């Protein structure tokens, strides 16, 4: 992964010093609550229900083993022994003390990490495919471009106080695993007819209160110009985005209000002044950044390991895990492993200090010292020898990191919800664990097949419920917690927003509601048809009808 040079390190160190000073001025009363708020937010520090929440940046999900160990150390020393992987590939701590945060940031900086711009109305952490660099369907590696955008956006003086938060994602693969269409700017790496690299630029996607799929603003921006083009987009937004209403302040609202053609025209009018200016990228800079990704040289391996084949044949549990949690690698004899953070009875995405250590050990021993975090809230070992998979599985299993459920119903994506988050209307973790408990039977789970369940505790949509095949949204009704259900959402190339099936449900009903949806699917599916494909084919009506009919029957049974 990317290794800092002296300038990268200095900027992070100077940030620690700056925030230490700001925190002490706040604690001494010199800085008011209102003045300190955006400063702490731009360092990922929220004041939450019980304690501050600190969100640590994991740029485009890339992690090294020493960083994993440091994250574990911080969890142990400053938190309650665990942390949480967020849906934007970041790491969150729920229990640090405000006074400790400068010290935590200092520790992070010692392993080339930080919490810069992980919150606040600024350009946030850039996200990408967790399989970047190793996926078979990748045509251009997004990571150097992510790093270039990261550096450009870090402390950008003009764009630190935008109308609202701003998220950028980059995709370079056939299948979009970065959900670029749900970002303020989605950058799709492509080649033109002449083979030149450039970006298709999508603007105005986003979930939250008003979910919108991003629209194409430019079909091809040559790579040299991409920072100039982003600057033009950001400037139009900074000057003209709404600031009178936080719920209407995202760029998607501006794009909708102007219409995408007019928005694109304004961006173009700004871009002509910036084109070929000093921020124009050079071949030398791209090569320099790419060279600082010290990707391992993978020693040649046979395409098929006989030992691996023997383990597959003799061990059903291992074979099941390989079937779900292991992905093809672009290099023969290698594979990518997903370490599941979705274990029965544990909040989705939670990871203990011991699991950080195990993941670090696995990374060192089997994956060239690297790991990735995913927006599905799991970890990935990107490059593992096929011959090592059995050992990885055994060790991961002992650490509770090998639930064979990737892409299945229990691989639920959920925000921290009302248990932790001050914004939430409702809890999300107990809903997730109740669903996981209902679908505990592994054979049944595999029979149901691929399905994405996303749970958000409020309409800020941190659990990305709009793009879940089944989406669950916590809502507040007269002070009690209710859950609205959508189906038919999807991320990736066919990104779509789910449709609400009807009136919301009480928490206790949720496992039954999911059962009704799943039964409708299994009764109607064609062979090899996924849940989402059945929904697309037959529409939401049969699902809706059954869910509410069975709900009535349950009520009558109780009377």
């Amino acid at each position, binding site marked *: 992964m990317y290794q800092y040079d002296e*300038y990268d390190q200095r*900027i992070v160190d100077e940030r620690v010093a700056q925030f230490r000073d700001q925190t002490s001025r706040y604690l001494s009363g010199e800085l008011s609550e209102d003045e300190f708020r955006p400063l702490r937010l731009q360092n990922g520090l929220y004041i939450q229900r019980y304690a501050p929440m600190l969100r640590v940046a994991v740029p485009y999900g890339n992690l090294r083993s020493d960083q994993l160990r440091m994250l574990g150390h911080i969890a142990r020393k400053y938190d309650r022994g665990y942390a949480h992987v967020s849906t934007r590939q970041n790491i969150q701590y729920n229990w640090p003390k405000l006074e400790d945060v400068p010290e935590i940031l200092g520790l992070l900086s010692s392993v080339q990490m930080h919490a810069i711009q992980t919150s606040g109305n600024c350009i946030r952490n850039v996200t990408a495919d967790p399989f970047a660099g190793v996926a078979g369907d990748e045509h251009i590696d997004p990571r150097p471009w992510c790093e270039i955008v990261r550096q450009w956006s870090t*402390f950008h*003086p003009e764009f630190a106080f935008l109308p609202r938060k701003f998220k950028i994602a980059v995709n370079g693969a056939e299948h979009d695993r970065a959900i670029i269409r749900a970002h303020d700017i989605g950058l799709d790496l492509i080649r033109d007819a002449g083979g030149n690299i450039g970006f298709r630029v999508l603007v105005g996607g986003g979930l939250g209160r008003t979910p919108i799929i991003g629209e194409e603003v430019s079909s091809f921006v040559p790579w040299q110009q991409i920072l100039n083009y982003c600057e033009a987009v950001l400037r139009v937004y900074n000057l003209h985005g709404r*600031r009178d209403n936080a719920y209407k302040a995202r760029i998607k609202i501006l794009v909708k209000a102007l219409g995408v053609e007019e928005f694109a025209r304004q961006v173009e009018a700004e871009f002509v002044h910036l084109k070929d200016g*000093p921020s124009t990228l050079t071949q030398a800079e791209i090569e320099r950044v790419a060279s600082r990704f010290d990707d391992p040289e993978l020693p040649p391996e046979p395409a098929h390991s006989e030992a691996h084949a023997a383990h597959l044949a003799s061990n059903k549990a291992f074979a099941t895990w390989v079937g779900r949690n292991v992905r093809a690698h672009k290099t023969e004899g290698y594979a990518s492993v997903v370490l599941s953070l979705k274990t029965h009875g544990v909040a989705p995405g939670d990871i203990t200090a011991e699991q950080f250590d195990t993941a670090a050990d696995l990374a060192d021993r089997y994956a060239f010292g690297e790991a990735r975090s995913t927006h599905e809230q799991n970890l990935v070992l990107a490059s593992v020898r096929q011959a090592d998979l059995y050992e990885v599985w055994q060790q991961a299993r002992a650490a509770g990191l090998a639930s064979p459920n990737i892409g299945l119903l229990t691989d639920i994506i959920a925000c921290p919800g009302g248990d932790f988050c001050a914004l939430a209307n409702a809890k999300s973790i107990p809903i997730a664990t109740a669903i996981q408990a209902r679908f505990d039977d592994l054979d049944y789970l595999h029979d149901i097949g691929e399905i994405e369940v996303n749970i958000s505790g409020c309409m800020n949509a941190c659990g990305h419920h709009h793009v879940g095949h089944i989406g669950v949204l916590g809502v507040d009704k007269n002070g009690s917690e209710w859950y609205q259900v959508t189906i038919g959402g999807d991320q990736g190339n066919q990104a779509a927003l789910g449709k609400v099936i009807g009136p919301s449900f009480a928490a206790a009903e949720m496992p039954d509601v999911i059962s009704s949806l799943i039964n409708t699917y299994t009764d109607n599916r064609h062979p090899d048809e996924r849940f989402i494909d059945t929904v697309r084919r037959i529409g939401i009506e049969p699902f809706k009808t059954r869910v509410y009919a069975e709900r009535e029957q349950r009520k009558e049974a109780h009377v």
Partner: protein
Amino acid sequence: MSDIIKRGKLHTDDWTIVRQAEGEDIASLELPAGRVIVPLPLWLARRDSLLAKAEAGVVGVWLAGDEDPATLADDLLRLQLIAIDFPKFADGRGYSIATLLRTRYGYADELRAIGDVLRDQFFYLSRCGFDALQPKEGKYTRVQLEAALASLNDFSEPYQAAVDRAEPLFRRRPREAA
């Protein structure tokens, strides 16, 4: 007289910022004696009578966040002071307006941040071309403002190009490949 920061130093300043009260008529509003910074609508309405004073350095103009700096394009060689108002420090439009004035329209004289101007934004403000920073009257003591000068240098080598450093880090400094 108020304490402001000008070109990186503490400075005692005698400009008066004229703000239009609600219902006040800009055509007849009487300007205070001494050097004044007037709102853009007043400048536009009374430009002919104010031009000579602007050239003499006793009248400047301030812009609100929703005002287009292009409106002043023809006056930039005459004005010796333009201010941009921050109604709230978290309203970031002024950063883009300043950048445009400096880079697009080539304004070279004093560019002053007024309104809710706080020390924790000094670094970003100066990077966007503000060479004068005027916190609200009474916001900081002279001692606090003196201490706040350090904020101008929070970061020694920023990554991106801006008004203060016209080139990004990768053009300014040799950065090593691995």
